[in-house]
């Protein structure tokens, strides 16, 4: 069997506002647009992946929060309605997605062998979280690729960012191993924002862009610092500064996605492509692609 390959790694945030603003037929609410800078960023990411052959998407969402290890969706299909419990006015999405159960199981088993706590999710009534749906839609709105959906182990809440990162780096390592052994070509995605301090009010028209800005200057500085590391291929510095970044920017990297992603890419030393940056209710969001297909062996 040919060796599998990670063709790209992506940081692809999931605020439901983006799907809302796109007005896809699957989503019930209707918007007048909004958050174009980020949506154009997603357009550029989709264009970049358009001619890339791949078999599956492996996605870690911070909104499937598990406290007893890491879980994986383990049935071939999930079809239901996803309503965001925080922004139900914006996101009520009818989803129908397929799971690559073989690849899910392979990553699950590898993680178990490595001593991580893992579980397959095989309850057909389970509703897929809105983070997975939003990122899944924005990256691949035709939903023609099967997914591996990985929960966010909240080990940071129980221990520390350092412990969380240690576990996520290990999970990333076995994820990479499983993908390479699977013979499949895969896009790996961390679905999280950068700085994550929300506004606590919402304007009358949620998509009123005159109200949108970063929550504070400190958040902006942290986001730009991380983006500069991304743009200059300094992944190790991102990992090194993850504890400070996560604490001080209240960053959504607390869910482990970014650490896991960089580990699956073997801590890339080549520049990530910034497809877009923008704020959503004050949080900082970057859409980044690491085109691993063009940089084989360029890890640190």
């Amino acid at each position: 069997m040919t060796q599998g390959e990670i063709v790209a790694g992506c940081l692809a945030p999931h605020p439901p506002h983006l799907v809302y603003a796109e007005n896809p037929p699957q989503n019930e609410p209707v918007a007048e647009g909004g958050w174009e800078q980020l949506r154009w960023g997603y357009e550029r990411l989709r264009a970049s992946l358009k001619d890339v052959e791949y078999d599956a998407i492996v996605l870690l969402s911070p909104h499937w929060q598990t406290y007893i290890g890491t879980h994986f969706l383990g049935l071939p299909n999930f079809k239901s309605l996803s309503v965001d419990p925080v922004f139900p006015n914006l996101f009520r999405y009818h989803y129908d997605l397929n799971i690559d159960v073989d690849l899910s199981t392979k990553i699950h088993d590898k993680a178990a062998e490595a001593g991580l706590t893992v579980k397959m999710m095989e309850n057909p009534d389970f509703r897929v979280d809105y983070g997975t749906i939003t990122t899944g839609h924005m990256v691949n709105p035709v939903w023609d690729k099967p997914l591996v959906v990985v929960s966010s182990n909240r080990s940071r809440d129980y221990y520390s960012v350092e412990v969380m990162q240690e576990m996520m780096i290990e999970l990333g390592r076995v994820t990479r191993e499983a993908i390479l052994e699977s013979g499949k070509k895969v896009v790996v995605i961390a679905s999280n924002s950068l700085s994550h301090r929300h506004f606590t009010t919402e304007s009358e028209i949620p998509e009123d862009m005159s109200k949108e800005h970063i929550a504070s200057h400190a958040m902006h500085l942290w986001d730009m610092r991380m983006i500069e590391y991304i743009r200059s291929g300094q992944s190790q510095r991102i990992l090194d500064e993850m504890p400070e970044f996560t604490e001080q920017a209240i960053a959504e990297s607390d869910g482990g996605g970014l650490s896991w992603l960089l580990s699956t890419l073997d801590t890339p030393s080549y520049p990530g492509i910034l497809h877009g940056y923008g704020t959503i209710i004050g949080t900082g969001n970057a859409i980044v692609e690491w085109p691993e297909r063009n940089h084989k062996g360029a890890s640190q």
Partner: protein
Amino acid sequence: MSEGRLVGSFIVPVHPHTVLVPEQNEGWQRLRDAFDDAAQRIKDSNADLLVIYSTTWPSIIGHQIQADPNPEWVMVDHDFHDLGSIPYSFNIDSEFAHAWDEANKKRGLKSRTINYTGFPIDVGSVVALKLLNPDNAIPAVIVSSNVYANRSETTVLAKSCLDVIKATGRKAVAVTAMSLSNRMFTTAIDPKDDKIHSLKDDEWNRKILEFLGEGRLEDVGQLSRTIHKQIRVQKVVAFKPMWWLAGMNENRNNLTGDVLAYEAIHGAGGAVVHLDPTPSGAGDKEYDEDDVEFFSGERNVLDAEGGAPSFDAQIPQPSKASTSSGPALWEPTTGESSVNSDAAPKPVGMYPHARRVGDLLYLSGVGPRQPGTNAIPGGPICDDQGAPLNYDIKAQTRAVVDNITRILEEAGGSIDDVLDVTSFLVDMDRDFAGYNEVWADTLGKVGPTRTTLAIRALPTPIAVEMKVIARAPKGN
């Protein structure tokens, strides 16, 4: 109609084990039995409303209140999905939900109702309603736990709920769906091996339950921050439910407490506790928290609603809701036939907010200052040194109308009762158009007679004030 009241409070655990697999562990079964006992006590109390504050429904934009009269779905826990599914169909008091939402807004809270098919009701609420109200006989209402809320915001949330309970004559039961210590085992365990995660967590839980068993709810409320640091995994929601429940019980410390069960659920501390409002005699407390009536915290991160003010580079810009300077504030006088409202700004002299004479209400001059904070929506007209500031006359005028509404509602009436208005503007040329526009949207639709005068100054740095005569509501 007699005034409504709280007839009981309960604390219940959130995890689905007590619904799905109580038989797998003796402790889980004892919790389930305690749930059944609690359900019977609620039934015996003749309660006609269940109010659920759930720690497993976090919110960001203020608080959210479930208002779908009959939400139906199948709930599967994110962690314990292998235990099974919980189908639900609940009886929600939509009318109460909307009234609470309105009451929240009057007290300065950001709030909204939720009524969407398929909305994912959280595990804590599902467990509470399935077991405490198994036949859906009692209508319920569910409120979220705001991620960013502090004690004052959570207390005001309880006060606005009590406003509606009292006004609607309800016999309500308050329920907090929560764990005590919330650290679970991070690996799978055999159910028979379940225990509290650590001795330290267990000791803290028992101390909390000792307080609650003595009815000392306010003491637990004041310990919440310490409890959170000691035995709570640092999730975003923190240990707020005791603040809300203490607020629902008017911060009393002499309730009659009864701990019905205390057990571990996958390492977390789960307890079923009944707090009866009957005084226990325990009593004493040191109340060292601010007793906040209105929330005036960080809820203005966006620009002024109703239009951002025009900016002039030559003039210093005020914040949207600057605190005014000016004369000292007075408590409104309380003479015969006076009408005063905690929801209106305090007077700047010795007079009431309004006075009733026969069939008419005479209101003292009403400005835009905000109750509680004394802030001026749209900004003050000058700084402390008298230097002019840019301000938003529309925001000020809207705030005046809101204050008039609050005073009339306190008297049992509404804005529709306004008969005659005399308006005072400090800058007719600058402000008349904006003032007139807001008037047309608000009082203009009610139809009172109106006189508008230009004056040199008002006692506080505001641009508009109104003097109102209104119809007095009958029967008050």
